[in-house]
Structures are given as structure tokens and as C-alpha cells.
């Protein structure tokens, strides 16, 4: 039995598919990353997000990840442009994609304010790409070193990308299966009416049933789209649905390049013949197909590493189950789980710094330390609240407040319900830590 399975695995690992699919994915990924990096710079977000703020919300265990200096952060972005370009051209591909992964992830780790699932998606995909031979053709590498040219790549190298994309959709779909989304039509009942200036049908968005319709359709779309993309007969319809779905959400919500990233990513589900045709659109002629390396050589640790990444991806989104509270309220184990646009949450946080010697308590003006985006995110996320409290204690201690204790009165509203206290407003947050243990000072969320 075990032998049979291992034979099957062995056989699978050595199965090859045309390399056009993987190569096209590399090219599209490179182009997209180039565009989105340039867009980020053009919008002035380097300055706004990484240079101007005097404080950054680091990730637990990654406190050393800092912007350091403007020159440093600009260099990081310079590196991103260069590596994205190299990925696109397939020039020193391995080095480029490894560097891209490190640089991109570094930037994302600087401040959790700017956490977005689609940035995480880019990190994961670029990590996977480090292990894939995506430069075997239609690349400068294969022109310069003819021996790496190949019309075939291992099947698993295409499958893992498909799996990853399927995970994103299916987990996003599963996350929508909750009573708020399906039975209360929340948060779309709040978000859609704000779009009532949409041409022609805008007024419909104030109708409650439209929010329900969109909620259910969104859930069904996410849960089923990977399957309908895999099945050849439904593929073209599924792809049309992807374009419409991401088109609409992209128009409605301020979500940047994400719709484009997903729309172009799902192209990988098409046949390699289609990919070949698309590559030809890039004026590429199949010049050196005389000698092809088939089956491609397999370096054994690679499929093992990829399997490990895949398993981790399947498990990580479920870590919220380790915590007892309502995951929307506490947000413990919430990130890195493809929970996208799932709730309307907002908070107002007032911090009180107390001089333990004199007993005098002062009220902090958050905007003196945080930009608007940071304040908004911090005001509803307990881990950021405690981080900010630690920062305030240090800051005011330097300015003469004796052994400061910090408490916070945080009122948060979830899906349009009246706001209520998010955390125990009497707890001294300097005595609390931001780590993976359950935050007992978060108040219960009961309906």
C-alpha cells in the first residue's frame, strides 16, 4: 500500500507539462509587480507610509524589521523594481526572485497597519516561485545559457500555483460562511449603499436584498471558482465571472491592484496551448526547440519543500481556532487567513498615561504619533493597541512621566452595531504583551 503510494508520488513528481504555463505566469507576475511597485512610489506612499510616521507597528518576532532611513527604504524599493524587471525578463531569475521575495516581505513586515491579504499572497507566491524553474524559456537566462532551455517543466510546478490560488478563493469563501455575511447581509448592507452613485443601477444598492444577493453570490463564487476553472467545459464562463467579479469589486472598493493580480493569476488554469499563444503575442518565436530536456531533472528536496509550504498554507488560516473569542472582535489569528473584506469594523481609542508617582493621568492625542491610517487600524486591533501603549510608556517616560502606566478606552463598532468597549479599560497595558497567547484583557463580544 505504502509502496503503491510512493510509486504514485514518484511518478507524479516526474510527470512533465509544457513549460509555457509556468513561464507565462512568471512574465505576468513580473509585469504586475513592476506596475504595482511603480504605482506605490508614484502615489507617494513610501514617504507617507514608511518615512513620515515616527512609529511602526512591527510583527511579533520581527521587531528588527524597520525602515531605518529614507535612503534604506528607497533602496528597498529600487531593489523591488530591479528584481521585478529581472523576473519579467527571466534574467538571473533565481537570484532575482529570491531577492524579490525577501525585499517584498521585508517591506510588508515593517508595519502591520498596511497588512493586506493580497500583499501576503504576493509574498507566498514569490516564495513558491523561488523553487520553480520559471525561466526555462522566453527568458534571457535561456537565451544566454541554452542548456537550461526546456519546453517542459515538472507538472507539480504548475499545480502548486493552481493550488495556492484555489486556497485563496476557497478559504475566502469559507470565511464568508457565517451568519453575519449570509443571514444579516453584513457588511455589504453598509458598503453597497455608499456606492449609490454607480451609473444607472446605483439606486438599487440601497436595497437590502441587493446586499443579500451580493453576499450569497460572493460566497458561492469564492467557494466554487477554482473548480469551475479546472473543468475545461466551464472554464471560459468561470474566467468571465472572474473578470466581472473582480471588475465590480475593484470599481466599488478602494483595493488597488488586487483585482488585476487575481484576474491575471487565474490565467494559469487555462491549457498550456493558450499560454503558448499568449506568449507568442509577446513576439516570441520558438527558436531553439530542437533539443529539449525531457523529462526534466528533479532535484528531490524541491517537491518536499513545496509540499511543506502547501501544508502550511492549509493549516495557517485555521489558527484562530486556538483562541476562544469571536475572531472578528479579538482578531486573534485573523491575519494570513484570506479573510478579505469580511467585516466593517472601526474604533475610537483614547489612551491615558499615568504618572505612578504623582498619580496624575493625561490623555494622549494619537495623531501626534500616528498617521490617519495607522490610527484607524490601531483603534480596532488589540495587538496594535498594546504595542502603541508600550510605545507611549517609553515616550513619556523619557519626557519625565514617572514609571508610566497606560490604559486605553477603546470603543469599537462591528458591522454597524453600536460601539462598545473592546478591551478592559482599567488594565495597565504596559503589563500586557503582544504575543501569541490569548489576550485575556479583550472583553467578550456577545450579541
Amino acid at each position, binding site marked *: 500500500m505504502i509502496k503503491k503510494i510512493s510509486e504514485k508520488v514518484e511518478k507524479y513528481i516526474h510527470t512533465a507539462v509544457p513549460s509555457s504555463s509556468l513561464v507565462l505566469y512568471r512574465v505576468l507576475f513580473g509585469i504586475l509587480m513592476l506596475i504595482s511597485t511603480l504605482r506605490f512610489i508614484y502615489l507617494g506612499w513610501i514617504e507617507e507610509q514608511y518615512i513620515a510616521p515616527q512609529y511602526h507597528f512591527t510583527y511579533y518576532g520581527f521587531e528588527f524589521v524597520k525602515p531605518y532611513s529614507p535612503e534604506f527604504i528607497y533602496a528597498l524599493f529600487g531593489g523591488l523594481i530591479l528584481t521585478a524587471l529581472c523576473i519579467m525578463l527571466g534574467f538571473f531569475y533565481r537570484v532575482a526572485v529570491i531577492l524579490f521575495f525577501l525585499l517584498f516581505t521585508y517591506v510588508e513586515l515593517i508595519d502591520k497597519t498596511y497588512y493586506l491579504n*493580497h500583499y501576503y499572497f504576493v509574498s507566498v507566491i514569490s516564495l513558491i516561485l523561488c523553487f520553480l524553474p520559471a525561466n526555462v524559456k522566453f527568458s534571457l537566462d535561456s537565451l544566454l545559457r541554452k542548456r537550461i532551455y526546456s519546453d517542459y517543466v515538472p507538472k507539480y510546478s504548475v499545480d502548486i500555483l493552481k493550488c495556492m490560488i484555489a486556497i485563496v478563493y476557497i478559504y475566502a469563501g469559507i470565511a464568508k460562511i457565517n451568519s453575519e455575511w449570509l443571514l444579516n447581509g453584513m457588511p455589504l448592507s453598509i458598503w453597497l449603499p455608499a456606492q449609490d452613485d454607480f451609473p444607472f443601477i446605483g439606486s438599487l444598492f440601497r436595497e437590502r*436584498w441587493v446586499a*443579500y444577493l451580493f453576499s450569497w453570490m460572493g460566497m458561492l463564487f469564492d467557494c466554487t471558482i477554482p473548480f469551475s476553472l479546472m473543468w475545461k467545459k466551464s472554464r471560459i464562463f468561470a474566467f468571465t465571472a472572474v473578470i466581472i467579479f473582480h471588475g465590480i469589486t475593484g470599481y466599488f472598493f478602494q*483595493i488597488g491592484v488586487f483585482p488585476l493580480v487575481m484576474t491575471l493569476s487565474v490565467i494559469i488554469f487555462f491549457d498550456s496551448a493558450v499560454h503558448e499563444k499568449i506568449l507568442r503575442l509577446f513576439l516570441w518565436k520558438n527558436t531553439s526547440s530542437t533539443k529539449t530536456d525531457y523529462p526534466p531533472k528533479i532535484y528531490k528536496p524541491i517537491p518536499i519543500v513545496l509540499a511543506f509550504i502547501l501544508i502550511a498554507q492549509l493549516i495557517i488560516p485555521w489558527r484562530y481556532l486556538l483562541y476562544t473569542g469571536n475572531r472578528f472582535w479579538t482578531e486573534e489569528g485573523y491575519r494570513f487567513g484570506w479573510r478579505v473584506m469580511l467585516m466593517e469594523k472601526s474604533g475610537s481609542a483614547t489612551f491615558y498615561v499615568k504618572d505612578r508617582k504623582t498619580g496624575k493621568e493625561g490623555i494622549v492625542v494619537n495623531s501626534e504619533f500616528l498617521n*490617519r491610517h495607522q490610527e484607524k487600524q490601531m483603534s480596532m486591533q488589540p495587538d496594535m493597541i498594546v504595542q502603541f501603549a508600550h510605545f507611549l510608556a517609553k515616550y513619556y517616560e523619557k519626557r519625565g*512621566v514617572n514609571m508610566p502606566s497606560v490604559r486605553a478606552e477603546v470603543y469599537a*463598532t462591528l458591522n454597524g452595531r*453600536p*460601539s462598545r468597549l473592546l478591551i478592559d479599560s482599567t488594565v495597565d497595558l504596559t503589563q500586557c504583551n503582544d504575543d501569541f497567547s490569548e489576550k485575556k484583557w479583550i472583553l467578550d463580544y456577545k450579541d
Partner: protein
Amino acid sequence: MIIGCGDEASNNSTPDSFDRVTFLTYYADSLIIPEYAKLNREVGELKISIERFASSSDEQSLKNAQIAWHEAYMQWQNCSSFDFGPAQGNFGTLSEDIGTFPSTITGSQSKKGIEEYIASGDNSLSNFARDTRGFLGIEYLLFESDDNEVVRKFQSAEGEKRKAYLIAITNDIVTKINEVYTKWSQYRSKFIENNGTDAGSSTSELYNEFVKSFEALKNYKYGLPAGKRPGQTKSEPDKVEGFYSGSSFETSRKHWETIQRLWQGKTTNGYDGIGFEEYVASTVTGKDLVLSTQVQIKSVNDAFNSFPNNITLSQAITTNEPSVETINTELQKMTRFLKSDMSSLLGISITYSSGDGD
């Protein structure tokens, strides 16, 4: 409604229709532009009285200038919350340009104050020391001590420099206000057309500045002088906004009334139109929020009403007058209703950065 299940608490009703074009048109035509027009006239009057005072430098013309200042500054409270669009200059907003306080009177080595600028005859105002000019710079020069003494300073040998500086900073606010007022006539149509809810939309800008203005009232007009900031060991009554004229309570109350009116959609004449109140009420659970906001507005009003008649805000702070504490507390309690609860329900984007995509 097709699907009628779900818990009642969060499902009040189908949102009413709400027309943001009507809303924005009403705010522009009834709450914003007429107030800038009035302010523009008031500072015109102020300029005339100040020029008269500069030429005659007697107590009567000082009195007139003081009254004109007070009226203009009160009117400014009706406009200071509109720090977007035309009020957004290259180097700062109108509020920052003309409403910065507390003023720096005598500076330090690294930073000049009003008196140093006067002594050096530097009327260029080409610096970022906004706390040496604006409404509160004028206030200092007109109210710094009793009228007799003020007049004496203007009549003295150094008086000419003082006059020149006073006129320069008066002209500065007149020019800046006139510029914003004039720009509004062109900006109006853009303001109304930009009727979405994304970051940078008129609704978003109006709302953001409304909240900022409220927070400025709470943090700087009350919190700071009352010693509410961390690190302050005691209250600092001289940091109130109109310290020399003793008008802080009156002007800060006017400021609060503006916040209240902007939420309700009320003009200064008392007409109650389609405002944020109606906008919030039109959202899915908005009626609850409207009720709780109204209750808190009443508490803030009660707090302001409990302030004694015959003393200034800085005196009240010095004597630990309990109503100051009440005002602070009630403004603090107001925050969440105006800040997070409201933006959440209206679905307004307040930052340009990308959100989490689907």
C-alpha cells in the same frame, strides 16, 4: 425583502434613499459659502477699524478695533471646520495659517516671538512661525493689558513698528480669507460633482475636517489648558485660545455649536436641512446611532450651560471650576459617535491607501 431572517438587533430597515448631491449642495450654499462671505465682510471691517486705530491710537479706536476683532473671531468659529479644498494651501490649511494658538510672545534663542519680530521690524511674515500672527496675534496686540497700556505702547517711540506689524498681520488674514472665499465660487461645482464616498470625495473631506475640528476643540481648546496632556504636571490656563481677550469660553462654545450644527445640518439662522444627521439615519442601523448621538450632544450642551457666567475659561481652569472637567469629559464621550461609529456606517473611506481586496 426577500430574506427576512437574521437577528433583529442589527437589521432595522432598508436604508432610506439619501441624495448626496442635495446634501453637498445644501452644505456648500447654506453652511459654508455664506459663512465665508460673512467672515470676509467681518475681517474687512476689522481691517478698517485697525487702520483707524493705527492712525489715531486712542482708547476709543482701540475699543472699536477690539469689538471688530471679537466679531470677526466669533465668525471664524463658523468657518474653521472647513479646512479642505480652497482652505488647503500649499503650506498648510487656513486654520493653521490664521488660527494657531497659543501665540509666542517673546521667543527663545532658536525661535522668535511676536515682540522680536516687531522689534526687528520684520513684517514679511515669510516664515512658518504661525503662532506669531493670525487672529490670535492680533488679539495679543489689541488686548495684551489694559486699554491704557495698550494705547501707550502704540503711541511710544517703538509704536510705529507695532502698528506696522499689526497692520501686516491683519492684512495677512484678510488676504488669506478672501482668497479662500473667492476660490469657493469656482470650487462649488467641483465640490458638488465629487459626490462619491471614496477618499478624496467631498463627503469624505467634509467629514474628515469636521472630525478633526471636533478633536482640535477637545484636545487643544480644553485638554491642553486644563492640563490633560500626559507629561503636564499642572493646568496651563494661559494656553487657552483667546487668553488676552478672555473670550475663550465664548469662542470655544461657538466652535462646539458649529460642530453640532454641521452634524445636524443646521444653518446659523437655525434652518435645519439635510445634514449628516439625516445621512446617518438613512443607513442600515443609523437610527440607533442618531439617537445616541443626540443624547450625547445634549450632555455636551448641558456641560457648556453649567459654566458660570462671570468668569473666563482661564480663570475657571485656575480655580478648578468643576464645569471645565465636565466639558472635557462630555466632549471625550462624544468622540466615538462622531469618529468611528459614524464613518463606519456611512462607508466613507478616510485614507487613500488600498484596502483589503476581495
